[in-house]
């Protein structure tokens, strides 16, 4: 059976390829008057013939137009929800007096890092310097932070379950891996611009772009983390009659947590990178300071904003990283060992 399956698969590929060539040929404006010409005049073997052109572009355009026309409501709904969330969050944080916000961030870091003074002091410095660099940066950093946090939440809600499904089922993994490759390699402008068409200008296309760009590492590391759990430990759980749910929540996820936290950390860093690029499609935030500086050829201004982004990145990285370490200590009990 298996051998046949392979042959069937190969012949299917062949059929699909031939069909594509035929479609390309028949739909081309430049095709010769009849097929027989191809066998008498061999000049088409010299340069790539104009008729051998897959009409992918019009097809994609049609599809995209149709998507906007027929599912516009759907995207509008998502847009309204995310935008509402973003606006609420931003207004709340902008409305807070700056010392209060600063203290809450420092307190969050202190408790999340397991009362690690070193990390907390470093984060406190970074938070202070955001406003200290330029008073304008404070509110812009809040906007950027809100976008990153919402994008991250989206990544977590979708990424972790997908990672779990991939670890459980080889077929799902084989189906999703190429999609992840695509998401990671396709240039970001290829989905930033369509994002504007789907969600309008502003924060939501940036969140969408963050999701596309930052979710693959989280999915990959979740999948890897679960698969790397010691086989004998899993066998032990099965031998004592753990069902799938008990196995997942009681054994696989806790033991995969260090890897998953690494994924979350990666996800944060990539979100931050993307939100800066997203300023080019009109997303407000610290990124547009960089853009503005470069447009005015004001290198100092661009660099200053660049430093602010780095500080923001350090804050995010320290907080998620130290939380990961704390969890790792709790699950693996290697106290006094810095990982």
């Amino acid at each position, binding site marked *: 059976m*298996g051998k046949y399956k392979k042959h069937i698969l190969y012949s299917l590929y062949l059929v699909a390829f031939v069909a594509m060539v035929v479609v390309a040929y028949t739909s081309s404006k430049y095709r010769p008057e009849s097929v027989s010409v191809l066998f008498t005049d061999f000049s088409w073997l010299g340069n790539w013939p104009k008729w051998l052109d897959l009409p992918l572009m019009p097809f994609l355009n049609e599809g995209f137009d149709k998507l906007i026309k027929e599912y516009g409501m759907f995207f509008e709904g998502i847009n309204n929800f995310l935008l509402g969330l973003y606006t609420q969050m931003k207004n709340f944080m902008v409305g807070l007096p700056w010392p209060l916000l600063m203290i809450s961030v420092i307190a969050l870091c202190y408790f999340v890092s397991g009362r690690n003074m070193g990390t907390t002091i470093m984060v406190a410095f970074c938070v202070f310097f955001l406003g200290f660099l330029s008073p304008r940066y404070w509110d812009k950093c809040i906007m950027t932070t809100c976008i990153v946090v919402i994008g991250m939440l989206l990544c977590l809600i979708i990424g972790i379950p997908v990672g779990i499904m991939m670890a459980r089922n080889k077929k799902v993994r084989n189906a999703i891996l190429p999609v992840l490759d695509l998401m990671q390699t396709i240039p970001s402008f290829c989905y930033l611009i369509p994002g504007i068409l789907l969600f309008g200008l502003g924060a939501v296309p940036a969140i969408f772009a963050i999701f596309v760009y930052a979710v693959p590492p989280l999915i990959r590391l979740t999948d890897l983390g679960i698969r790397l759990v010691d086989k004998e430990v899993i*066998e032990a*759980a099965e*031998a*004592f009659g753990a069902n799938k749910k008990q196995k997942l929540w009681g054994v696989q996820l806790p*033991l995969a947590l260090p890897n998953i936290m690494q994924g979350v950390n990666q996800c944060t860093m990539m979100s931050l990178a993307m939100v800066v690029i997203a300023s080019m499609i009109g997303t407000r935030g610290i990124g547009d300071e960089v853009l503005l500086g470069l447009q005015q050829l004001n290198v100092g201004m661009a660099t200053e904003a660049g430093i602010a982004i780095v500080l923001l990145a350090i804050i995010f990285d320290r907080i998620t990283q130290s939380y990961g370490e704390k969890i790792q200590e709790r699950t693996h009990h290697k106290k006094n060992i810095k990982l």
Partner: protein
Amino acid sequence: MSKIEIKNVYKIFGDQPSKVLPMVQEGATKEEILEKTGHTVGLDNVSLSIEEGETFVCMGLSGSGKSTLIRHINRLIDPTSGVVSVEGTNVMDLDQKKLIEFRRHKMSMVFQRFGLFPHKTVLENVGYGLEVQGQKPDERNKTAMEKIEAVGLTGFEHQYPNQLSGGMQQRVGLARALATNTDIMLMDEAFSALDPLIRSDMQKQLIDLQSELKKTIVFITHDLDESLRLGDHIGILNGGRLVQVGTPIEIIMNPADDYVEAFVKDVNRAKVIKAKIIMSPVSSSNGVDKTNLVKVQEDQFLDEFLPKVVCSNANCEVVDKNGNVKGYITQKELSKALTKEHMANAKKSK
């Protein structure tokens, strides 16, 4: 009815096991199958039955299929063909839900590399079987504490596995298997990763526990001494085939083939053979010189009384628990039993 019945079980690892099965059934060897089809034969027509309350030791070198065999009993591995039945139930007939119930209540398992949960304390590890059954923490902790005490780990219950030594970790594994109080215990090379002293300690502990609990134990090992010490019956696997099943004495006295013979060649017989095995009964003891006798119990191993007998140059009088004389052992018989010639002779006379 036997507690565990394994009938004509084949297991082939690879892409299309059912296609390769007929070849294996026709008697192709493991190497031939691997060369021709790329499939690995795990088990080749294994049939055996394990009685209630006995310790069955399954022995073989690595790659002989012993770990595969034990995983068929609780269906961590599905057989390619054949029947595995436990207490009369064919395990292949169980659906997912029943299989989980079956694993929870019928058997427990001890693993070679312990298989402990690194994120749980000793107490939580031992209580794991009860936890998945849905027992309340108070209840299961009580049982778990009892079992921790039984294996001598009191005081360590709030430690984590990687804070313990190998021997202690395996005690946790053993306590975890005992906690669910199942009739059947599967032990997959449970003591192989331990150093010799701790291993023999653990063996003694298992023997003591078994004499109280009378569980049905399936024990996997590659160590002949261990199997002779623990097993009521021993099955020897070679290349996925079961080459011999018998009591320790049968295996030593009558090895079925060269493979088993090579295994038992270097065994210290004095440690395995009991007095009653080699004694000549009272009825045929006319020629025995009874002037100088050493009294021995019929269940004593030879090495327990050998020094005494050799020093006094005496013959042995074998008595049972009540002191009745059952038979005699002469010096000649002793020396025969302890040399390889004995084995060869026994084979010939068979």
